[in-house]
Structure formats: structure tokens, C-alpha cells
């Protein structure tokens, strides 16, 4: 029973502005931190690929079953996500330790020669994310102050 109501002049102006804005809408990525490796808009994959998340995919147990390289991949390429967090947890459970100065993961290769309460010195395996491979470092001093 109210019928239609013609737009007032100021409403017409508002509509014109709204209409103009309609042609450059925000995208979901605009509201997120820049994330080069995790594009916000999903990439369509063939239907016969798994489309759903696997059950229990966001638990540490799940990550512990992944290979070490995969864990490093997740840690370096899915920055700031829960996956990164869980990958770090799984790596720690495998005696990897994150060195904040070098931003790399280290694992003891053997019992260190020197251990005191500031550092330990010995041979370590570290993960070189530039060459994407594990390497051995002899006589390396692992300072505790850089232990995350």
C-alpha cells in the first residue's frame, strides 16, 4: 500500500556515486595482508582432485606424518598461517630448532663438543632454504640467545 517513492535529488547523487564505485569493487585480497604464496582467491582445480580438506588436517599429528621437506615447504611458503605454526610444531617434535638470527632450522648431527649455558658447539644439520636442501655445518656455534 505504500507504493513507490521517487528518489530525492541527494539520493540520486548518492546513487550515482554508488554506481561509480560499483565498477571498482574491493576484492577479498584487499582486506588481507599481502601474501604472495597463498593467493586469496581459490584456483579452480579439476573436479577429481580432492576438493575438501582432509579430516584432522589441522592437527600436529597430521603434520608429523609429513616428510621433513614438506614441513619446510609449508613453513617457508605458508607464512602467517596455521599451517606454518603446525609445521613448526612438528619440526620441533623431530628435534629441529629454529634459529632466529639465521631464520633457519637446525638439528643436532651429533652430541655437541661444547655445551654451556650460553651456547653449544658441534656439527649441525641445517636446512638451506635457498638451495632447498639439508646441509651439514661443522664446528657451528649455536647461541641460545637466538633460539626461538
Amino acid at each position, binding site marked *: 500500500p*505504500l507504493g513507490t517513492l521517487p528518489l530525492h535529488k541527494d539520493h540520486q547523487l548518492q546513487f550515482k556515486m554508488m554506481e561509480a564505485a560499483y565498477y571498482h569493487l574491493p576484492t577479498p585480497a*584487499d582486506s588481507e595482508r599481502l601474501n604472495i604464496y597463498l593467493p586469496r582467491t581459490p584456483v579452480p582445480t579439476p573436479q577429481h582432485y580432492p576438493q575438501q580438506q582432509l579430516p584432522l588436517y589441522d592437527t600436529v599429528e597430521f603434520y608429523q606424518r609429513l616428510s621433513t621437506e614438506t614441513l619446510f615447504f609449508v613453513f617457508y611458503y605458508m607464512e602467517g598461517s596455521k599451517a606454518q605454526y603446525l609445521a613448526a610444531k612438528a619440526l620441533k617434535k623431530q628435534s629441529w630448532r629454529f634459529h632466529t638470527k639465521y631464520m633457519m632450522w637446525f638439528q643436532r648431527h651429533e652430541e655437541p663438543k661444547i655445551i654451556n649455558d650460553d651456547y653449544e658447539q658441534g656439527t649441525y644439520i641445517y636446512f638451506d632454504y635457498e638451495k632447498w636442501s639439508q646441509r651439514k655445518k661443522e664446528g657451528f656455534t649455536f647461541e641460545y640467545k637466538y633460539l626461538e
Partner: protein
Amino acid sequence: NDCDDPPGLQEKTEFLLKDWVSIYNQSNNLSRETKIFTSFVQKMNMYGILKTDDLITRFFRQATQICIDLVYRILNDPSNSPLQARTKIFHWIDAFVHLIALLVRHSGEAGNPTTKINLLNKVLGIVLGILLQDQELHGTAFQQLGYHRFFVMLFLELSSPDAVLESLMLSIMTAFSHTYHLLNPALAPGFCYAWLELISHRIFIGRILAQIPQQKGWPLYSQLLLDLFRYLAPFLRNAELAKPVQLLYKGTLRVLLVLLHDFPEFLCDYHFGFCDAIPPNCIQMRNIILAAFPRNMRLPDPFTPNLKVDMLAETATAPKICSNYVFNIQPANFKKDLDSYLKARAPVTFLSELRSHLQISNEPGSRYNIPLMNALVLYVGTQAISHIRSKNFVPNTSNIAHSAHMDIFQNLAVDLDTEGRYLFLNAIANQLRYPNSHTHYFSCAVLHLFAEANSEAIQEQITRVLLERLIVNRPHPWGLLITFIELIKNPIYKFWDHDFVHCAPEISRLFESVARSCM
């Protein structure tokens, strides 16, 4: 007003901003930023930027302007793909925002929030001012991207887990809510889509509605929703929705559905103000709000045969109404007359003058003062409930009759034209929600009006108002369902005897299908 900026300030600002942007984008470990930040602040000091509050203001204004000019330059450069353009823009704005966040976090002494919040308000105010100026300047060529990115990133920065910021959460949310209110689509229509993104960002909603203690964020958020409804109203008021309106409307429905699912109590508490702002013809959107009910409440199936609604314990409790709606009953002498009429049914002229208070024009479609109508109906209803309760009765369709309150409702039903009566019946139907004393009383009231109507036109219109709320897609408010079911089931209303029930085959079919589902 940058014409009286001290000479060289623009160049200094540009130099410092560029310097910071490159530092920010190269630092590959934000955790070492305090060192970087402190040295940068010293540089700012060296350039005399931090000497006075006024200089700081000018610095931020200049820096913001530089970023915004950059946005327009990059967006108007055809060689950039949309993604490239965004990445370039975000490198600048994210860096600038990060600097602001660090300054807010480190400004003033530890434990003294005022300096921090003042700085935040200053910066928000500057960007707000530049946005509004920009919109004036560019008109339909206005670009929202830079501002959207600025607000969302600054909000995310200041929402990251940090003991100092956590303690400031309410002040930070208040600062952002006020800024968004001042940027509401009616004032910044060119920013309306970004604005809706900002006020419905999941972290913004999480903080303002869930994490701030004692629901102190709720009034802030209700103001923003009101802004949105008021902006949309003239465009939703007419059935034809242009594409830009459709998109914003659909977005609003999504936000309301999230609120209905996660914060139904919020919708319950603020429903009255929302219904004032939502055009009467927006039935589905309004139903989303009216369908909300407190999560700890179990609603009996409205289709249960012989449901004794008045036996429900909840019908004794009044719902929370977070709106000082009585204030809408103006002018003051009208309110005075109303109260005296409710008390003593005098002055006798009150009823005959009622319409003249409600009618504000002769424009079809906008003849009546809707907020006054809504407030009047709710006020009279609440007075009726307390009047009946004071005599230790529970309101029902018979003891609500023969009272000053019902006089007023009868008068409105009979004296108003179709438009006015539609708004009056809407005002009642807007109270048919989850089990509470208002739902119960108004359910009885509308049924009583139907039973006592002296013309079939009134009965038909009551039916239409209820029906139009029922035939839209779900959700449907509980109170609406039980009222309509009572109307078609209870023989005292002789519902099926009225020819408007049979005025067309599809209408009869419609009623029968509703009846079948509840009988």
C-alpha cells in the same frame, strides 16, 4: 590546510616516507623492527618532524596525500595489471600503516593510553578528511582502494596480539567505529562497498561484538548498522533494485545472517531501532532481525497442536529494548496528553486528534511519521502490559480489551487510511518475535483487533500484513507463526468465512497450504 605548511615539509615528508617504505619492504624479519624503528624515529626527529603536535599533523597529512596521489597515478597507469597495481599500492600503504601502528604503540609513556589514542584519532581524522575532500574532488572518478587498504591494515595492525594494544581494545574500537560512522555511505557514497567490507571484517566483528567485555561494543556496532540501513532505505524503498543496490543489499543480508547466527542477542536488543530505519517493504531483511532469539532459549515448535503460548514462562519477561524509543514520542505535550489519556481516558479529544499527530504530509507513500508510529505502538503496548500485570493478570485476548490502550489501537485501526493502517499493523507485527511479554501481548492485540474489526477491510489488511511476512523465504519470526496459526485455527475468528480468503484461487490455495502445514 597545507598552504601554510612550513617550507620544505613536503620534501622532507616525501624523503622520509620513501625511506621508510624501502626499509619496510626490505626488512625480511619484522621481529627486528624495534631497532629499525628507533633509528627511523631519530631520523624523523632530526628532520624536526616530531617537534610540535602541529608538525606531526602536517607530516601525516602530507604523507597520506602522497600515498593517495600515488594510488591515482598507479591506477591510471594502463601498463599496470590490476594485480600489479594493487601490489605496488599496498607496498606503500602497508608500510605507511605499519609506521603509524609502531608510533601508536610506542608513543607516550607505557601505561598511559591517552597519547596513543590521541595519535590514532588524529591519523584516522586526517585520512577521513582527505577521503571526503577527495570524493568531492574526483566525484564519480573517486577511487576507494587506497583508503580501504589504509583502514583495514591499520585495524589489523592494531588488533594483533600485543599486551599494550589489548588493554586499549575498547578505545581502539571506539576510534575506528567513530571514524566509520563519519564515513558512512550517506556521507561517502563512493566508499560504500569498501565501508561495508570494513564494518563486516571478521576481526572487526569478532572484537566489537564478542571480545569487548560487557558488550560495550554493541552500541557502537548498532550505530554502524543504522547508518547502513538509513543509506539503503531510499534505494530499497522501491521494488526495482539496480545492480549496484542489489550487490550492497545482498552484502547486507550476508552480514545480517552472520549476526543472526553468531550474535542473535545483539539483533534482539537493537531490533527496534533497526525496524525504524528499514523500509516497511523490506520484509525479508526485517524478518532476519525479528527471527533472532537468545541462544539459551528453546522455542517450542509453533506447529505443535494445542500449544498454550500463555503458559510459557518466557511470556512473563519483557525483552531488552536498547533504544530510547519513548524519546520519539514528540512533541512533549502530545506525550503528556497520551499519558493522561492512558491514565484516565481524558482528554476525550485525544483519540480524534491522534491522526493529526501521526500524519506529516499528504504525499502518498510518506504521509506518516513512522518512528513516531512505532514508538507510540510500543509505548502503549508496554503500558498495557504493566497495567494488566499490576492487577496480577496475564494479558490475553479478552482482558486486553476495554482499556485506554486498546481504545488507542482501535482508533488507529479505524481512523487511519490504508497507508496509515498498514504502518500501524506493521508496528505491531514488528513485535511478534521470540517468546516474551511483548510478543505475547501484541499477538493478542492483533488477534483482538481482527475479532473486533467492524469492517472486513481491516481484517483483510491484518491478514495481508501477517501473510506478506510469511510467504517470503525463511527465516520467519516465531511470534508471527504462532499468531497466524492461531488466527486460522481458532474458530472464534471465523477466518475461513471471509471472502478475501477466497478472492482468487491461488490465494485460497496459499491459505490451504499454510493451514495444512500447521493443522
